[in-house]
């Protein structure tokens, strides 16, 4: 319990140092685009593969479970849309990104800590937390909702490609299902979740990296902790946000 409060205190202190006005906005924006490239654009190939295959799998599973003649075929499209938008494209993608982004951030900052690069910045008078962490948090939080949208679109396309290849249902039925009882709020709900989840991933991964100690083993440990804690928090906040927003 004491450890938990200590971690929470250190995390808040670190965030207080992170959310300061950058020393120079030109440096901040330069880092912001670099981090957007590393965290967001570099995640797109993985996201395409996973979203397309999961979209296709959802279509197969839903179609094979809708045997009753009383349930219209276009429900395959409805189910694919709802599964993707409500849970997969935000929570599941965030859990995958927790592994990819979280380990990358924690190991990058952790390596800088143990090789004294962060100390070097501090001695120069640079707010290392602000310089290293703020661009990561901002780029991930701002652009991750776009990743969610992309994942949703690619998931739906994956389903459509599978349907056109296998003919489980017609593409027309699928398209009808995608439009049936559509609630645009679900898209915003999912984007909000994704933004918050990516804030949690980047801030906790940065925290564990920033306070890494004990050489390369310590860096590995900090990466693992970052993934475990951010995944757990994603699931907890998924429950909270779902209760609050739906």
């Amino acid at each position, binding site marked *: 319990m004491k450890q938990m409060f200590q971690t929470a205190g250190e995390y808040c202190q670190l965030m207080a140092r992170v959310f300061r006005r950058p020393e120079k906005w030109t440096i901040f924006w330069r880092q912001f685009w670099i981090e957007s490239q590393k965290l967001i654009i570099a995640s797109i190939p993985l996201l395409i593969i996973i979203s397309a295959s999961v979209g296709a799998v959802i279509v197969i599973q839903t179609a094979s479970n809708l045997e009753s003649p009383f349930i219209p075929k276009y429900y395959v499209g409805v189910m694919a849309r709802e599964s993707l938008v409500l849970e997969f494209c935000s929570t599941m993608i965030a859990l995958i990104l927790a592994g990819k982004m979280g380990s990358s951030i924690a190991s990058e900052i952790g390596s800088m800590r143990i*090789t*004294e690069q962060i100390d070097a910045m501090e001695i120069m*008078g640079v707010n290392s937390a602000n310089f290293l962490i703020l661009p990561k948090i901002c780029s991930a939080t701002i652009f991750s909702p776009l990743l969610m949208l992309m994942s949703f679109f690619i998931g739906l396309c994956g389903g459509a490609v599978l349907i056109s290849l296998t003919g489980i249902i017609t593409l027309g039925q699928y398209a009808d299902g995608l439009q049936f009882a559509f609630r645009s709020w679900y898209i915003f709900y999912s984007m909000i979740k994704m933004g918050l989840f990516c804030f949690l991933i980047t801030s906790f991964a940065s925290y564990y990296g920033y306070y890494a100690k004990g050489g390369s083993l310590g860096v590995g440990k900090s990466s693992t902790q970052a993934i475990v804690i951010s995944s757990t928090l994603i699931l907890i906040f998924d429950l909270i946000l779902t209760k609050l927003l739906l």
Partner: protein
Amino acid sequence: MIEVKGLNKSFNGKPVLENINIKFKPGECSLIIGASGSGKTVLLKNLVGLYSPDEGEIWYDSNNFTSMDLAHKKVFRKEMGMLFQESALFDFATVQENVMFPMDFFTDWSFEQKLERVNFCLNRVNLENVNNLYPAQLSGGMQKRVGIARAIAMKPKYLFCDEPNSGLDPTTSIVIDRLIQEITTEYQITTVINTHDMNSVMEIGDHIGFIHKGHLVWEGNNKQIMDTDCQPLNDFVFANNLARQLKKNSSV
């Protein structure tokens, strides 16, 4: 000048430094020597503000660094340069970007002005045509020299070096030592060097402080160290056969 007054530092109740009083003068290479774990690095980290002393004060000329708030310390740190044991060059940046890093933050110079200063600093440490290389592409000695170039980029008044020769061969060590000494004299910098390399002590030790088990037990220079009767210092300096033989020959 840097003055340390009655400095105490402990970790988890275990004292690491006790009642350290020492002065470091400008234009002199002041060496802090001692065995591994004696508290040298802790003293250096207290001097640069990475640790806060439990008791005591650190004065930079007429400024009490210990009692400064973070904002003042930040301004003050712009006058400090530090060379780390493993150089601590930024992996993500080229040599040029590494040396330019503090200028990007704290000057309004144009890119050309910054580049001119970078090239001056790199030339000063005898490095050429390395601007676009990354630290991983440099040898240990070259990394140290880039570290020195970065440390002097903002024309610091105070230079701190933590084990500058660690991992270097004797010839390169001497090059680095002489470079630090030249820069110290040329720019009248107050330089504090942590080392346990006796070659450095004999080469550039204008002022030497010996720390033993957290206490400053001896102060002098590289001439006085040969004739000291301080037993822990003798045990440290003349730890190997070669050094003992040299002392024996010099006394004969």
